[in-house]
């Protein structure tokens, strides 16, 4: 069942979206505002930015906050390798995202919505500005404003495009006009966000799904999924025949994702592993093929669903090279506030590149093991944890590949 990727959602034109049944969720929200958050709770909607935190809880916290000014931060900064769902939602289906943000504003009594988008995602911005402008001029928007009975604004803000700018406190810092430095939590964004005021930070996929929950109801939403409610956007890439964005029931098995929807492994090469959503999580390997892809099932396996990015690696692709590539990404993306992250990720990247490029030393593996222990949990945000987790899991599952690369190394000057 296609919800977010249904053709009716894929329009730049607000009138077309409303004609195809869009806006119904917002109408329901306007008539029964108090039922919004309970509906999300009943639907079991979770945060799709990677953490999977229950949306209703987050919304309730902002709704309960006592402040004159409250904000909705619609987070579309995605920048990590292998994830391209937010780009699709913002460029192809902006109206379901904006409608979701308006519903969130009604539920929480917000005074403003900031659609925070990555400028590096080509074409995002002009289309998005245009979509927002269509909403601003629409009578529905006036009804929302009237319903809230307070000054209310809806704006688009470009992010820096930096990876740390997607972390919720980094995003808030950027909207506040600074460099997107993440900070320690608590205080949570629901207490201290944009302009120091209570702020709801939600991924664009979460907000888009909220639109559909409000339109069709919680029961309908729950039935969409297999092992957990709803559908999920999977960004499928790597050594797969048909890479791309797949919207599938939550809890679809990894095997079904690869074989039924991805067309199977590219060139018939054996399956080796999957880097999931980040790629900052524990690798999924052949023994995980039948695991249901939902937040809790993957967490039970010691991994995470993350953003739903699935970078599939076949026998022809080197784990060492891929890990080096991703850790280098994290090292380049570190904001530099926390010394272990600033220095540690670069140290790991340097060693991985050295191994990959044929200059590995026999004691490099031990050094990497030690760095994993040192780095986990050493930063304010999760960046360094992502780097350490993907490293640790590749070392654990594919140690022989590392040993071979070091064994093959050229020791002559």
């Amino acid at each position, binding site marked *: 069942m296609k919800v977010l990727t249904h053709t009716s959602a894929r329009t730049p034109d607000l009138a077309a979206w409303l004609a195809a049944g869009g806006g119904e969720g917002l109408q329901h929200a306007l008539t029964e505002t108090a039922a919004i958050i309970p509906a999300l709770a009943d639907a079991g909607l979770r945060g799709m930015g990677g953490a999977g935190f229950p949306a209703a809880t987050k919304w309730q916290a902002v709704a309960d906050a006592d402040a004159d000014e409250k904000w909705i931060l619609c987070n579309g900064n995605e920048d990590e390798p292998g994830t391209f769902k937010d780009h699709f939602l913002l460029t192809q289906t902006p109206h379901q995202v904006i409608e979701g943000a308006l519903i969130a504003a009604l539920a929480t009594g917000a005074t403003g919505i900031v659609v925070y988008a990555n400028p590096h995602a080509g074409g995002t911005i002009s289309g998005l500005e245009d979509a927002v402008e269509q909403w601003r001029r629409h009578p529905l928007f006036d009804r929302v404003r009237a319903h809230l009975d307070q000054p209310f604004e809806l704006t688009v803000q470009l992010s820096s495009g930096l990876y740390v700018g997607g972390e919720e406190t980094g995003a808030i810092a950027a909207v506040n006009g600074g460099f997107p430095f993440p900070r320690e939590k608590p205080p949570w964004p629901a207490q201290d966000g944009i302009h120091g005021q209570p702020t709801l930070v939600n991924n664009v996929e979460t907000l888009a799904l909220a639109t559909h929950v409000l339109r069709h109801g919680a029961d309908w939403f729950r039935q969409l999924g297999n092992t957990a409610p709803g559908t999920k956007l999977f960004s499928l890439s790597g050594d797969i*025949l048909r890479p791309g964005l797949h919207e599938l029931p939550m809890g679809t098995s990894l095997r079904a994702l690869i074989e039924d929807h991805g067309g199977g492994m590219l060139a018939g090469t054996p399956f080796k592993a999957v880097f999931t959503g980040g790629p900052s999580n524990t690798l999924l390997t052949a023994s995980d093929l039948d695991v249901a892809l939902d937040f809790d099932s993957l967490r039970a396996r010691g991994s995470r669903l993350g953003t739903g990015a699935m970078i599939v690696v076949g026998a022809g692709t*080197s784990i060492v090279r891929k890990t080096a590539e991703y850790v*280098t990404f994290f090292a380049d993306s570190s904001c530099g506030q926390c010394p272990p992250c600033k220095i540690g990720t670069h140290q790991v990247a340097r060693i991985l590149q050295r191994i990959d490029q044929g200059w590995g030393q026999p004691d490099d593996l031990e050094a990497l093991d030690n760095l994993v222990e040192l780095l986990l949990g050493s930063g304010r945000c999760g960046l360094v944890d992502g780097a350490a987790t993907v490293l640790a899991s590749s070392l654990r599952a594919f140690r022989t590949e590392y040993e071979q690369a070091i064994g093959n190394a050229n020791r002559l000057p």
Partner: protein
Amino acid sequence: MTAMGVDHATALRSWSARAPAPPATGDLPPAELVRHFHPDHQADHQSELRVGACAGMRCPSGLADLLQANAHIDDVDLAGIRNLHADVLVLGGGAAGVVAALTAARDGAAVMLATKLRLGDGNTVMAEGGIQAAVGADDSLQQHFDDTLAGGHATADPELVAALVSDGPAAIRWLMAEGMAFDQQNDQGDGASTLRRLRPGGTTVARLLSYRDFTGLEMMRALREAVLLQPGVEVRERYAALELLTDPHGRCVGAVLLDLERERLVQVRAGAVILATGGAGRTHLGGNATSNHYGATADGLVLAYRVGACLREIDSFQYHPTGLAWPRHLRGLLITEAVRALGARLVNGDGARFIDELAPRDVVAAAILREIDAGRGVERDGLTGVLLDTPTLERERPGVLQNHLITLVRLARKAGIDPASEPLLIAPTLHYQNGGVAVDTNGQSSIPGLLCAGEIAGGIHGRNRLMGNALLETVVYGRRAGKAAVTTMRNPSGRAVGITHLGDWQRGLIHAGLPLDRRAPVLFPAYGHADIERRIHARRKSAL
């Protein structure tokens, strides 16, 4: 050439009875000759490309198989291999590669020149006729331009031709400065000698500069010395290119090489890559004999196409009219065109001339094939061709064989023939890839960071090349590409340099229903039994 012809002994009698044969009448217009008899127009040997930047384009089936092949290596083969760095990586050790390397190094770049054979071991040294350049008082750039465009049936890119001919005189001066010798003549009576000029086939003026009948060898001699003495050029012999490296933006940032001696892979990251890998003759397209050197296996074309480069006129090949047709073990080897420029005639099994010997190559080749098709060829030991009348030439210009056609005499001797008394049996031989990678006047392909020089580049000759323009192309475009590489090179320190373009490539092959187990580049002809696969994976296996 399976068609039956006139028995060799009978043909010799007809020849000696009619020599010197009168000029041919030319009953078919050249365009008709080519359309009916040239191998490029034999549709049953052609197929359409189904994947890549030029899907839909036609080319010989044998070439299509190579262009649409899978890579030899996977990403995993790159883990732990040695990394080397260069500002400019030149692939190919013929004249174009060496000229490009010299130029780039003199402009300050750190250059690596890799060749799968040895430096100079290529088609350049087999070029016998000469090099065209409009240096004569009765000549002009415009005439050279017009001749080249007309010779290519107006299918060449005029801008590329203009660049080629405009740089011609400077290229000759440059070669002289590198120490290359040219034949001189002393015909003014004032003791001053000038460059000796011959009239190549398909031209309006004497424009061909040469050194005896081994012009290419002399050129390579000078270039080889120059490059070995040039600081800033690292020459790696016996390093074969298997795949180009790309970055996530699709820029070419180096290549994966196979060290054939040590049987191991290395990757060279480079700011720019110049392909100078030559042509495709040794793939024996259509089962044809070839005049080409052992290494001419279309490697560069395959690599460039796989990273998305646009090609052009790859269905057009030049068949040199005068390849040796007999004996079998020397079949395909080249008899220089200079022999016709000097006045030698072609006669069929009836002892008659059938074509203006100085017509463009495709016309002469088509005319020979027509004679053979019609049963007017000459047959010897099951091999068919026509006769090249060297004895009459020697009688008309005594000493010409010994003084100007040294290589021909040597080749004839290998065949057990005295060319002064007996005509050679010749037939068209697969000689030159007219098309290739589409480039601009700097040799820049459609892929950033990837340049081409020499035979691999397309558009300079159109659908037919004039004699003497190939050597000129190597120098002119070698210099242009070398210079452009230095000005456009980028530091290749991206986070994801690799061969990730192969994912999309393999998806394309699967969707087009093409096999994944056909691998290219082939590096050597099949009869070389080079066993590339084993050499590539030798270390992978030993590590497991």
